[in-house]
């Protein structure tokens, strides 16, 4: 299945900004992180289709995953 991945802040370094990747069925958000060699602890915010991934840890074809490091502001 196809998943669109968007990376932000320093995660873009040596990776990419936005890309569609082909993965097998039942791929989880954790699998995507492993694939990208991003430490789960460093991924502060992960959205799947604009919702926090806790709502949808296992992905479906066409999902969009956005990954941020730990950031803040206000």
């Amino acid at each position: 299945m196809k998943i669109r991945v968007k990376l932000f802040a320093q995660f873009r370094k040596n990776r990419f900004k936005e890309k569609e990747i082909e993965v097998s069925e039942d791929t989880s958000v954790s699998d995507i992180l492993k694939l990208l060699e991003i430490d789960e602890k460093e991924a502060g915010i992960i959205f799947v289709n604009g919702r926090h991934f806790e709502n949808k840890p296992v992905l479906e074809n066409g999902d969009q995953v956005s990954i941020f490091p730990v950031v803040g502001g206000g």
Partner: protein
Amino acid sequence: MNDKIYRADLSTLKAWIEDVPENLNSLGGRGLTSAVVASEVEPLCHPLGKNNKLVFAPGLLSGTTAANTGRLSAGGKSPLTKGIKESNSGGTSAQLFARAGIKALIIEGLPENKNEYYGIRIRKDSIEIEKTHLWGKGNFETIEALSKGNEKCGVISIGVAGEMKMAAANISVKDPQGKIRSLGRGGLGAVMGSKHIKYVVVEPSENDQVHVEDPVKFKEAAKKFAKALMAHPVSGEGLPTYGTNILTNVLHEAGGLPTRNFSSGNFEGHDKISGETMHDLIEERGGKVKHGCHAGCVIQCSQVYNDKDGNYLTSGFEYETIWATGANCGISDLDSLAYADNLMDDIGIDTIETGAAVAVAMEAGVLEFGDSKGFVKIVEQDIKNGTPLGRIIGAGAEVTGKVFGVTRVPVVKGQALPAYDPRAVKGIGITYATSPMGADHTAGYSVTSNILSVGGFIDPLKKEGQIELSRNLQIATASLDTAGLCIFTAFAILDNAEAMEAIVDMLNAKSGSSITGDDVMSLGASVLKMEREFNKRAGFNEKDDRLPEFFSLEKCPPHNVIWDFTDEEIDSFWNF
């Protein structure tokens, strides 16, 4: 050495120094300004009349060696909300106040002579009201003129927006580079202008120093506190690297970035105004990625932004400003936003309120969404020169909506909502609704748990847990604002118990007290209640704790959510 209250009465043009009354002794910052306003200001007074007062106070820990404690609070009755107001900011003045033993400066009365303008000059054991020729000048020129031959002095000033008593006028505070930080929200610049005060200068004297009862303990606690700030990934790395504007992309992805006057939670131009783009531009153009708003800030969320030729354009160019003037107005041209930011600093007008008001005017068809030239023109020509349109925008989003017959007007208690859509970030909606300050994100920054997953996670699209979250944060924030701590210390405080312990230890070591963490929280709770009580006496009731109707009627894409809290649910906020 005991701190003193410095007071200037413009009605008699007399100024003096007095002892701090017993009940104010343990207060600083917001706790102190709100207590003075609550006890000395007639709640039904006209905010621009002789019975309103303007109070400045450094936080309890300001001026010490502790990290991120250099915040200055300003308080009074707000011309924008007609309720109590506290606004705080960095800059150098809080530390200079505290080191000179100035617990608070209270400015009261109105001058009889309509054609004379003044400044106030203070230093340890001295306060004078002086006539000034700087009326009519911008903030930058004012600060430069006052700092000539006196580089180390602190300056608090208003620009022409404050002189014209615009309800969105702010007060500027000189930063370590001679640039500006702002006491932004609620129109306190108009209160200062109504009293014909152009500036307050605070001159450091040799040997000025904050008295600390137990220096050894204090040093230990301050070290522990700084360590906790640096160890937290947000304050230690996230904020210094990408600044506050990292939130543009975060909120866009979360579907909560208010776009075109709160008609959507996504902005297609987000990438062009994002923190990532800005970071690369700053590096490319030789600006500064990291920058502190006062000496002693170890986080340094701020930055210096240059134009494409490498010349200084603005600093302190923060997410809220970039959102208000960018996404909210449909503008994605970062350079023109930076240019407008610098202009608004010079004119002395709140960037959030201005952006929100222009977006309402865009909704009415006064100009098109996305018209960056039109935006700059409104600031540069209309607001600066006080044309009728400039006066309308300068009166804030609510007035602009009334004048142009717009129904989608995002305000609570007359103050424009900042950069998070309350339908898609429900916890911050509770803060907007209930804060005695009007819609203010800093009053209880629920975005932490709702979006950033700091201090636990509470689903932003659901109602569960939001009221408690906002309540806890508003109470804690009132305490931090009283201590003089920058709000960005909260990330570490929420995730690490040691940070809070260190704050309690510092407060105790400084004053020789023996308060506990619970005492600090109940102090925050009492400040909040005191502020609400003032508002009640000024005519507010629970009906003022509501978001505008359109949030319950119009769905916010992409999640297509509405604001769905009942009145009872919102009112339960105050059950503490």
